[in-house]
């Protein structure tokens, strides 16, 4: 029974002395550690063990150095020589596990589980071809990249120049604005005074007209009530008008009439106008002209329509007027039904403020001119500020080494898969829209460069896209690679609403063979 065990040993021993001048699994450079002797010193821990313990498929050294060629020490690494290709280290746990990890097949030397072929020449050649191709791509791409750098730097230069220019313009504009603002104020002061003067005169005139009109109305009423034409209004005459029936019992009593006559027996014209009319004008209904009271009202409301005097708002004025008109449509309609005596148009004309005098008109024109000039300057200043901010934020963007990516800003690239068209606008935004049509969904706006520490400029992050139902805001990680032209190569969604784009651009090309180096690094 024990024999089978010894067979295993023998196999292993053979493995480790298989035409090699040093134990299996180490590069020649480390052979000096494994010179045949009675004992072996574990390389790091320093522990001494019998030499035959090396590669005997039992882990004796804590650092694993006694088992470079077996899987006994999990922390150890196995060296594949890979002649014809490039040498590499693999994890010891991948030795004799039934998978050919090294292209020379040396990791499966037991041969029990699998027979590995040496295909280092083949993959070495392929690898070299690939590398050559890659190198060519990188070279060609790098030429274009140089253009990008030139463009990028040119853009930056132009933007800088423009920024300087705009800054200057802005300062000038600010001065001009201040100057025009003063001028505006200067022109507006006399304008205001002249206008106020004119308006005040008009107000007084209007009051006068109103009083006169009131008096005329009162006299008409007086004549109407004074049925006996004795130039006095008496108790009996009041009692003949049913609208004075305060308690609405059907008759106008003595007391009620007395009430209206202010306890007097009768009143003459002057007293009527002064004392009685104000009390009855709301009540009295003219038989001849039912509109006297209303007419008065109408004139009151027209009063409100005095043009607004705020400057340069003639248009608004018009609107306001129309508005009031509308509101009083009902009233007017009723009035016009009963008003057959009075002519409306002259009345309106009467109520309208006369034009400013020539002097005032000139002042207003001067002020308008000053205002226009000021507004114009203000707008230009704001435009300059906006442009300045845009330039500044552009110049603040990190366009990579030597601004190589700057020329991508302002461009968009699309790719369509089965369902969606994806769009990437570098340094701006990423989005998708259904192929069949429909609205665009934001997948994110420019966030930051998001490559790893070794190469920050290898990936871009777009974030704060449209929020996902029950989930995060959409975002995109854009992985860059070297290509002859700017192309959105692929899109995927590894996690819900976290997208990944692959984007090829000459800007990512490099003449150094950095990509190939990285791969090797990963393997280790």
């Amino acid at each position: 029974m024990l024999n089978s065990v010894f067979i295993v040993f023998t196999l292993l021993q053979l493995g480790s002395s298989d035409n090699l001048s040093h134990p299996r699994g180490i590069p020649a450079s480390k052979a000096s550690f494994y010179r045949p002797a009675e004992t072996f010193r574990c390389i790091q821990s320093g522990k001494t063990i019998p030499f035959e313990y090396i590669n005997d498929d039992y882990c004796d050294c804590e650092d694993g150095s006694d088992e470079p060629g077996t899987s006994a020490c999990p922390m150890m690494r196995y060296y594949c020589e890979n002649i014809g290709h490039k040498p590499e280290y693999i994890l010891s746990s991948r030795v004799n596990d039934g998978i050919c990890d090294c292209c020379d097949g040396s990791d499966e030397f037991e041969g029990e589980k699998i027979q590995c072929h040496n295909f280092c020449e083949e993959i070495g050649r392929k690898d070299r071809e690939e590398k050559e191709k890659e190198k060519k791509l990188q070279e060609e791409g790098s030429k274009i990249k140089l253009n990008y750098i030139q463009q990028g730097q040119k853009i930056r230069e132009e933007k800088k120049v423009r920024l300087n220019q705009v800054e200057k313009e802005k300062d000038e504009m600010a001065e001009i604005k201040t100057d025009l603002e003063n001028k505006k104020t200067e022109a507006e002061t006399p304008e205001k005074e002249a206008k106020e003067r004119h308006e005040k005169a008009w107000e007084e005139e209007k009051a006068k007209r109103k009083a006169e009109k009131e008096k005329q109305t009162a006299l008409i009423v007086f004549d109407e009530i004074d049925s006996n034409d004795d130039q006095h209004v008496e108790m009996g005459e009041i009692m003949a008008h049913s609208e004075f029936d305060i308690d609405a019992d059907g008759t106008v009593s003595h007391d009620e009439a007395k009430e209206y006559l202010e306890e007097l027996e009768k009143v003459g014209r002057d007293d009527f106008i002064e004392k009685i009319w104000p009390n009855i004008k709301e009540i009295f209904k003219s038989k001849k002209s039912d509109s006297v009271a209303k007419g008065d009202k109408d004139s009151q409301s027209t009063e409100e329509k005095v043009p607004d005097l705020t400057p340069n708002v003639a248009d608004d004025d018009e609107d306001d007027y129309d508005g009031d008109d509308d509101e009083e449509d009902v009233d007017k309609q009723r009035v016009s039904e009963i008003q057959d005596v009075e002519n409306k148009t002259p009345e309106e004309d009467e109520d309208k403020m006369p034009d400013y005098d020539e002097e005032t008109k000139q002042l207003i024109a001067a002020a308008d001119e000053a205002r226009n000039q000021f507004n114009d300057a203000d707008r230009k200043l704001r435009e300059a500020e906006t442009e300045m901010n845009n330039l500044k934020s552009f110049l603040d963007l990190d366009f990579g080494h030597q601004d190589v990516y700057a020329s991508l800003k302002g461009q968009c690239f699309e790719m369509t898969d089965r369902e969606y068209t994806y769009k990437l606008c570098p340094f701006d935004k990423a989005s998708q829209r259904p192929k069949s049509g429909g609205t665009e969904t934001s997948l994110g706006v420019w966030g930051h460069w998001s490559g790893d520490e070794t190469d920050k400029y290898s990936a871009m992050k777009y974030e704060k896209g449209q929020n996902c139902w029950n989930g995060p805001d959409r975002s995109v990680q854009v992985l860059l690679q070297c290509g002859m032209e700017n192309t959105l190569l692929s899109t995927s969604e590894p996690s819900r609403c976290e997208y990944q784009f692959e984007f090829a651009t000459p800007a990512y090309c490099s003449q150094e063979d950095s990509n190939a180096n990285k791969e090797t690094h990963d393997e280790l």
Partner: protein
Amino acid sequence: MAMSIQCALISQIKMLQLLFCLSYFVILSSAVSRENFKTCEQSGFCKRNRAMQPGQSPYIALIDSLQVQANSLNIQLLNKNNNVRLKLEAYGLQDNMFRVKINELSPIKERYEIPVGDSLIEEPRLHNINLSQKDKDKIVFTMDSNKVVISVEPFRMDIYSNDDPVISINAQGLMKFEHYRKKESWLINTGSSIFSWFTNHFREAPPAENEEEKPEGEEKKEEENAVETKTEEEPDMWEETFKTFTDSKPHGPSSVGIDVSFPGFEDVYGIPEHADTMALKTTKTTDPYRLFNLDVFEYELYNPMALYGAVPLMYAHNEMRTVGIFWHNAAETWIDISSNTADKSVFSHIADFVKGNNEIPQTDTHWFSESGVIDIFILLGPTPSNVFKQYARLTGTTPLPPLYSIAYHQCRWNYNDQDDVKSVDANFDKYDIPYDVIWLDIEHTDGKKYFTWAHEKFPHPEEMIKNLSVKGRKLVTIVDPHLKREDGYSVYTDARDKGYLVKNKDGNDYDGWCWPGSSSWPDFTSAEVREWWTSKFSLSEYKGSTPDLIVWNDMNEPSVFNGPEITFHKDVKHMNGYENRDLHNIYGLYVHQATMDGLLRRSGGKERSFVLTRAFFAGSQRHSAVWTGDNIGEWSHLKVSIPMILSLNLAGITFSGADVGGFFKNPEHELITRWYQTGVFYPFLRAHAHLDTKRREPYLLPEEHMNIIREALRLRYSLLPYWYTLFYQAEQDGLPIFRPLWVDYPKSKEVFRMDDQFLLGSSILAKPITDQGTTNTNVHFPGRHDIWYDIDTYEVYDGGVTKNVAAPLDKIPVYQKGGSIIPRKLRPRRSSSLMYQDPFTLIVCLDQQGNAKGEIYLDDYHTFQYRNGEYLHREFTFNNNNLSSKNIDPKGQFNTREWIEKIIIVGYPKNPLNISIKNFSGENSKRLAHKYNSEEKSLTIRKPGVNIADVWTITIE
């Protein structure tokens, strides 16, 4: 997988589908979907059975009808209230079991019974019984040291073991057997529930069936009962409405129920699946525990609501013995539990205080199912391992799984395309994290048509699988039982044209909504349909599949998005002439059984295979692994996974686990790390995540967490020889693998309800951390005479003691029992199949006497050749400073290259002088080098170098 899919994002969805989906979401998004599921109050038969009052049983046993055979007896039961007769059959069974069946004597329609072979593996083997007494009050019969007393009026059965009462049936008199009856014809014509309510409440006439069911003989009695006593009719007996769903109930009320008491028992376990503690709780103030396979969205914890699967098996345990009952019924079932001790806290009984401490604890249970028959298996133990074996005799055990299936599974809804699969696979290797199986959820299909591929995403599935299988890995695809109703989908049209689809009450193909939209379901209850389904898995039928593709059955409760309680209508018709009402809980079993048969057939039965199922029933363990469904990435769900898997293991579903990380939501790094530390002890170990979650493959986590997870997974892989041995033993004896402490320490009352720590087999004790921010925990070390060793530090802990131990994030409190020997494989590999030939390290943990013992089982790890004797089952023994290996099963012979590289003896008192190994004949003695660590008291023996099949002895001097 689950239902919270973001509908709008499903591609190729039709407008109607979208609308439906959205409205479905409105319901779902209102937090937990509790209102989608019936309470007892909303279930007619639950309400009727729960309303039964103790002490008023109308059933009497008709002594004159007694017939006794060698292994059984039968007797008629009469319901005095309605004069309906039942027949009771009682059988003695081998392995210390009884069976009691109650059915209608002459039903107008045959009642459903689960066919033998579907849940039960075979017709149970009978055992002789002896009638020892028969008089007008009672009948007594015995079987070995057990005795059954049948009381005549009212009918009850008391079962005694060695004269101790252990189980009583109908002792409370809650038995209710709703016989099939005819609905009055004019009522059938109207079919209006209001109308029937009216008539039910006001009619005087006796129900129609009395004319038909004239009991033979007993004419006098019939005369007396000619006018039936109070009608049993209630409004929901002939039609029942829940939410907007109306159940037509063409056969009327048909429920069966009875009470089962466990005198002397305070603790009962089992009846999965519930998200609840392992020890079952009294249901005095809650609904009864419900068994009804349902797809419950974001299920609530610690309540008796139904979940995806059902095993109507309950154990009662005390310091003296363990007994159990298996309720062999596949209809919707509810179980009420009350206990004179537990309920004291609820209703303080003055009488109990008067009686003092002499009161015997008792647990009373009340079981009722919507249809079928009463068919109770009584498992009399008396030890825990006895009851597990007894149950295994009835429904079988889990066949030894292929090694890969007990390793680590990596799943996500969804890996998007074959490049995604490639990249996940590559990253596991890059970060040197082992895994065996990668899974594809529903998005891999063309429009949710199972057995197809989304060709744009998976243009070359065979090539993709081959890239995995060269590293010993497998691919799982999901195959759900719902078939998209699409004319171009041949699986559907084939089933439709053959008449294989489940029918609605009107006899048309049932049409419900699931992932693909409008769907139909094959009638898996039919053996012919199962055979047809099985053929769909052949490599020629399932395009793009290879022998390395295995399958996952989800949604097989079944889940019907627009069905009542998200499942079939109860009046759905099966090909066997029964309604889904009669057999709902076993439908899912048929699905995964047929799937497994399909996979086995691919290799002509040579290769073992693997199926995962969400729905299950008693017997599912023979075909599939089970997971606990759509859990949530929250600490509470990590914690509850332990009692849930304990309960599944107790009920025979040993190969079970919970989704590591939680299906819904995004677990924080600490939680997912702790979840892996727990999950590596689940018999079925899979990480899974919902479509809406962030990616969380271990290599994406911060290095600290990734390293801890890698270590946890390596621990799992290193213990695979032990796991494999446990699975082999479980196939033989049905013992739970992931087991509660009381199974091994049945007399230690303090562990009876412990469900936050567990044993793996007998030799490993684990108490994973399931609380946020916790860095220490109280571990109870069972066994007053046992000692336990921390598997990392070999620190010793005395048994019978609870001790606080440190558990920082990188520590899992796991212990190996003193006296055990565990074989491990300590060389990390990328997958388990790459470990087939790796050498073993034996961890020998000495007990207080300095002895230890352990077993190893091994074979080729993937075929059925072990059933032809190609295996090794060996025992290692350490005593008197001799460690030896011997074959304990001479039937097994197997050649392997596996050898023993190292032996670590833990608890060894001093540095020995000399260690040597000799073979069986005593020749060829060889000296072995060793190393002794006096702090750890561990002795490492260098490279015995013997083949695992060898007979040898190592002597320490």
